[in-house]
């Protein structure tokens, strides 16, 4: 049987997951995930054509509240755990390419 997830696919999934995995991890995970996915295929024994998907077991509905301003965390607490800050901002590397701006 062809693998459910080969190394190339594992790399793609790692990219989607924003995980910079090592080659070793790609190798190890694709084998382990294959075993899990093959097991999961068990679900295909069941005909679920007429079954509704159940995302949540209790009836949940929108929760509304009055539109009243309440106390919030505030800038200082919000930034307290940030790896890098600049005054009242989170600091990240440049996102826009300079060359694209011209």
């Amino acid at each position, binding site marked *: 049987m062809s693998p459910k*997830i080969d190394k190339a*696919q*594992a790399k793609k*999934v*790692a*990219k*989607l*997951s*924003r*995980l*910079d*995995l*090592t080659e070793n*991890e790609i190798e190890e*995970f694709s084998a*382990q*995930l294959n*075993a*899990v*996915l093959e*097991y*999961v*295929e*068990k*679900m*295909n*024994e*069941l005909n*679920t054509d007429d*079954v*509704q*998907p*159940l*995302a*949540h*077991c*209790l009836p*949940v509905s929108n*929760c509304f*509240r009055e539109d009243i301003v309440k106390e919030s*965390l505030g800038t200082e*607490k*919000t930034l*307290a*755990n*940030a*790896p*890098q800050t600049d005054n009242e901002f*989170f600091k*990240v*590397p*440049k*996102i826009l390419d300079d060359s694209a701006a011209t």
Partner: protein
Amino acid sequence: MHELTAIQLRDKIKAGEITSTQATKKVLQAIEKHDKIIGAYISVFEKQSLERAAEIDKKIAAGESVGQLAGVPVAVKDNMCTTFGATTCASKILENFHAPYNAAVVQKLLAADAVIVGKTNLDEFAMGSSTENSSLKQTVNPWDTTRVPGGSSGGSSAAVAGRLCMAALGSDTGGSIRQPAGFCGIVGLKPTYGRVSRFGLVAFGSSLDQIGPLALNVEDCALMLNVIAGHDPNDSTSVDEKNAPLCDYLENIDKPVENLKIGIVPQFAAGADKQIQNAINNAVELYKKLGAQIIEIDLPHFEYAIAAYYMVATAEASSNLARYDGVHYGHRTENPNDYIEVYSKSREEGFGKEVKRRIMLGTYALSSGYYDAYYLKALKVRNLIRTDFTNAFEKVDSIITPVTPTTAFKIGEKVDDPLQMYLADMYTISANLAGIPGISLPCGFDDNNLPIGMQILAPAFEEQKLLRIAKMFESKTDYHKKKPAIIES
């Protein structure tokens, strides 16, 4: 103090027979002495808990009213936010994270005058069944230090079993309270989804996660549930009490349930070790003697629960853990080449193996081309599993099963085979998929003197009845009174 339950200690503290300071000191001494070996705690708040104990003692001495957990030393799993100490989730990515607010349950413990002595170890982000996936430390089973305590609430379970606190909070996404309670010979309750606020619980599988107590007996569990249950406007999935009224879970706890109908599932027995099967059969016999009617029931989709669970749970996890971006909080890689590497390298460095595996699995299940075959299929199977329980509970009040197919396994035995590790959750997982409550309580010991756990499941919001049913068994047995040898040393 080893002989006291949390309720008894609370009553003695309130009556002035023992002070909270004395009790807290005893617990801190026990931690000092035994936690080097057991490894239950990630952080211990020595100074803070003694100060708090002194405050409560003062209140009592002044005749002021005190809460339901007055002066009782308790522990909290380290995936619940606290403004004191770190909230690590046993992950490198959150190792230095200091939460800006307390989880709702932490706030409730404090309001009930509990003394929080420390935060306990877990599988990283609660992903695991042995606490071996902790990136910070190893916890061992107090009954046999070469074995795992179970997981993911392994630290809380080992702390309670090792008498390193009087009771603790855990979280249960697929059995993470009930399974370690079973392995450690204590009582663990997963309440109905929505009964307890998840506000401030670091999210793993949001439609499955539920906080609950671990304690030395059923009554202490009921007391803890009394403290933590209830609606919270900060958690939109916590249930409106108008629809599902709260009750005093200690009320009538000694009163046996009349006309009790217990369901057993013959197909379950085959999966468990012989000694576990025997212990469960003996427990069922005891209920029969107490007047219960035993009815065989069928849960036809039970064998698909693990497959459905690992799709739903990992899909939700991959989405929930997207928040660890190296920008807002948590670990950031040192020299990223660009902003993408801030994410991908920070996450690669900060997450442990099992967490990465589950993010990968969940991302795969949600990705274009696979969504229908895996995620959507799993949600449909989930519906079938819930319907199985709805049908079963038309015939019975509760269902008895083993908690686990084996007793506590050896450290290292399953770490390299995630699928085998997942299969260890076979009895507990379906309660999370169906959202129903379940309790794990000691019902025997195997030849290696390792605890055997029994699981009792009940319909949604029937915790009061569930606790009474559990108490019927506990009051006729003394498995819960046995202590691991390590704590007597």
